[in-house]
């Protein structure tokens, strides 16, 4: 099948049965890849009462139509499962080289079910697929294990690993690859660990079939030449995402001290310039990317061994650096390495430690809970000790292993107020109190709070930060266009930062596959995925839908104390009004339940049937659903 690897693998980890089937062309066209594939398979296969860390959950590794194929930029691989953090659909992607390698080995999808009898790793060398004993790999750190496996198997294998955190089911465990690329979010690493799958090793040496190679490569070749001189190219190449630390601070949305503040007065000590000047080892790109936003660095702290890591990127600097109030980029980079190697998402991991630091600041936890240690803002030793307590689930570490929501529920005493999370997943590195559309984006996001599905800081600025007018429709548009890149399984930044149009992406897909599709077709796939995930979430967690879209009280009620956004807060009334607007624009009812009309239009009427059975189908909208859902504002992305 042109444009695809051609084969779907189904691996029953319990029985070690491995089944190969040709990827169904109709399925491929309807769901296109990674996020889309994952959405449909999870919906169809996972029992609604399945424990995310149990035998019935699926662990899915998926490439997409653009992966591995001289495109802007098909570097990605997606991981899917029911999330232990949100108990809903999870898809988390990463760049690097694993996705392309899988496709060169001929695989579009690997669906793992069951639980391995012993710790194992998945070995794929073109047509050879084996479940091998993990032996003493089990227990190793992510980065250490990748080095070890490269030595054991050869440099040309691409490796993805989990760390002790994933083995121990910490709900914000990630999957690491290429010494610093992560599928970080939704706890995909915990699910991989629950399957007793320590690592994946892949080598692929086959050619990728492409329908019209000449037109295909010329298009991307021209895009490369055109974007080399784009004004955003140089700063992205030099600083990567860390460039935005100052930008965010100036705009009063940089999480500081667990979102108590939104301006870090020492931001210049932890920004991109400091990173590049003090720590840079080399610039590092994902497969096929000419923008090399990856910064490979060395952290040097007197009295500690030097560490080598990719990053910290913006999100890590925000949620570890700002939110834990560090004032030295070396400390942030060291913390980045610690979390990477132990196998925790630096975003939710950073946020969870920051949340604990606020608990410590306010006396909800004390030295007695911390094995005699403290948990002071900006203290790297305290940070490290606490992270190790979580990873090993020692003492109160076991409580924080559930993330901020789980920990707040366990601690009680109103701490949930300062857990900045939605559906059980922590916010990305942007405060929302002056950015209402961003708050709506987080709270309605199908995987829990994540900017990858909708990022609106510039939209809020453009439409006015003190208004909610017109925000919901733009959020919906972004929730379709941005995840589309996760479905195509390519990097979003070439659209967002270098003005490569979505239409050009579609053109390349048509050359690759021989399809004749339009951007509207793709946007419909994206909307189909969004609605299916919504239905799935409600089928698993009950309803009404609106009950899952609430915002943390801090962002509704607590005005920002200082900095450029001083005094700002969204307000409960505004937030509820945005939700009303959002549901109306989506073709859902006032309770946030999808209607039959929208689900049928998107070709997933079966989801309407299922919602109806449990009494959660949306009431019909008088006058019908909107013809077009979402409104495009000149997009600016990150």
């Amino acid at each position: 099948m042109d444009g695809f690897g051609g084969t779907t693998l189904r691996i029953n980890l319990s029985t070690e049965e491995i089944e190969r089937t040709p990827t169904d062309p109709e399925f491929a066209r309807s769901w296109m890849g990674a996020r889309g594939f994952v959405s449909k398979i999870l919906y169809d296969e996972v029992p609604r009462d399945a424990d995310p860390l149990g035998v019935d959950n699926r662990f899915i590794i998926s490439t997409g139509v653009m992966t591995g194929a001289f495109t802007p930029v098909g570097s990605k691989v997606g991981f899917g499962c029911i999330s232990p953090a949100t108990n809903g659909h999870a898809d988390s992607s990463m760049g690097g080289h694993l996705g392309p390698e899988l496709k060169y080995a001929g695989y579009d999808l690997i669906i793992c079910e069951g639980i391995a009898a012993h710790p194992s790793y998945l070995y794929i060398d073109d047509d050879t697929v084996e479940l091998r004993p993990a032996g003493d790999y089990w227990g190793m750190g992510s980065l250490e294990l990748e080095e070890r496996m490269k030595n054991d198997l050869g440099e040309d294998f691409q490796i993805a690993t989990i760390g002790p955190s994933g083995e121990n089911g910490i709900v914000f465990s990630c999957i690491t690859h290429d010494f610093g690329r992560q599928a970080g979010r939704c706890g995909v690493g915990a699910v991989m660990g629950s399957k007793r799958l320590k690592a994946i090793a892949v080598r692929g040496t086959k050619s990728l079939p492409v329908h019209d190679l000449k037109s295909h490569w010329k298009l991307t070749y021209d895009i490369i030449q055109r974007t080399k001189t784009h004004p955003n190219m140089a700063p992205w190449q030099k600083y990567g995402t860390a460039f935005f630390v100052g930008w965010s601070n100036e705009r009063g949305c940089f999480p500081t001290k667990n979102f108590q503040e939104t301006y870090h007065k020492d931001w210049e000590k932890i920004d991109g310039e400091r990173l590049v000047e003090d720590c840079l080892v080399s610039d590092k790109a994902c497969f096929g990317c000419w923008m090399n936003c990856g910064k490979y660095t060395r952290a040097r702290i007197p009295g500690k061994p030097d560490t080598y890591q990719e990053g910290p990127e913006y999100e890590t600097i925000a949620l570890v650096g700002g939110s834990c109030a560090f004032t030295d980029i070396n400390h942030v980079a060291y913390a980045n390495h610690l979390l990477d190697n132990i196998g925790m998402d630096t975003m939710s991991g950073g946020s969870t430690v920051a949340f604990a630091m606020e608990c410590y600041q306010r006396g909800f936890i004390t030295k007695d809970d911390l094995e005699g240690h403290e948990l002071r803002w900006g203290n790297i030793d305290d940070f490290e000790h606490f992270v190790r307590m979580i990873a090993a689930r020692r003492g109160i570490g076991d409580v924080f292993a559930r993330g901020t929501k789980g920990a707040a529920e366990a601690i009680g005493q109103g701490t949930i107020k300062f857990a900045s999370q939605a559906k059980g997943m922590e916010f990305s590195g942007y405060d929302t109190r002056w950015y209402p559309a961003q708050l709506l984006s987080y709270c309605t996001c199908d995987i829990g709070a994540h900017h990858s599905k909708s990022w609106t800081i510039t939209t809020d600025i453009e439409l006015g930060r003190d208004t909610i007018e017109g925000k919901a429709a733009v959020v919906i548009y972004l929730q379709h266009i941005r995840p589309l890149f996760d479905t195509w399984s390519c990097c979003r930044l070439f659209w967002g930062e270098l003005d490569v149009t979505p239409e050009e992406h579609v053109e390349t897909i048509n050359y690759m596959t021989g399809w004749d599709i339009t951007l509207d077709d793709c946007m419909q796939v994206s909307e189909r995925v969004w609605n299916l995930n919504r239905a799935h979430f409600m089928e698993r967690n009950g309803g009404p839908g609106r009950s899952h879209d609430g915002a943390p009280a801090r962002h509704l009620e607590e005005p920002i104390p200082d900095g450029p956004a001083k005094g700002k807060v969204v307000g409960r009334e505004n937030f509820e009004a945005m939700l009303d607007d959002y549901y109306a624009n989506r073709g859902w009812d006032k309770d946030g339940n999808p209607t039959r009309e929208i689900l049928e239009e998107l070709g997933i009427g079966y989801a309407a049937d299922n919602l109806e059975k449990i009494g959660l189908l949306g009431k019909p909208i008088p006058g019908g659903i909107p013809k077009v859902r979402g409104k495009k504002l000149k997009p600016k992305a990150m």
Partner: protein
Amino acid sequence: MRIKVKKESCTGCRLCEQICTICRYDEINPRKAAIKIVPHFPQPGIFEPKLCVQCGVCAKECPVDAIHLEGEAYVIHEDECTNCGICVEACPIGVMFTHDAAPTPIKCDLCLKCTEVCNTGALIVVD
């Protein structure tokens, strides 16, 4: 004219590998490229592009004289090559590559396409 490799500028993106096989074989398959990016991680944390420098040792060693100097590049003539592998062994910098699906060893013929897609100055054309 030759291709100068600036190792420290390489970011490991492997666009060069892709365009190489596209132009050489009408296929997308980095494993069939005449250039190979070797990562050295976690330490020292750099990428090493491995690319033929047209030294001509392969041509000297070829037992059937199938490698000819054409302009500034040594080129394998597919109809003369017996795929014996002696040149691969003899190559002093290990840049004669092989692939099961390739009829001869894989060697750079200075088409320069890789230098056109490289955006970091790691591969540049010099006189």
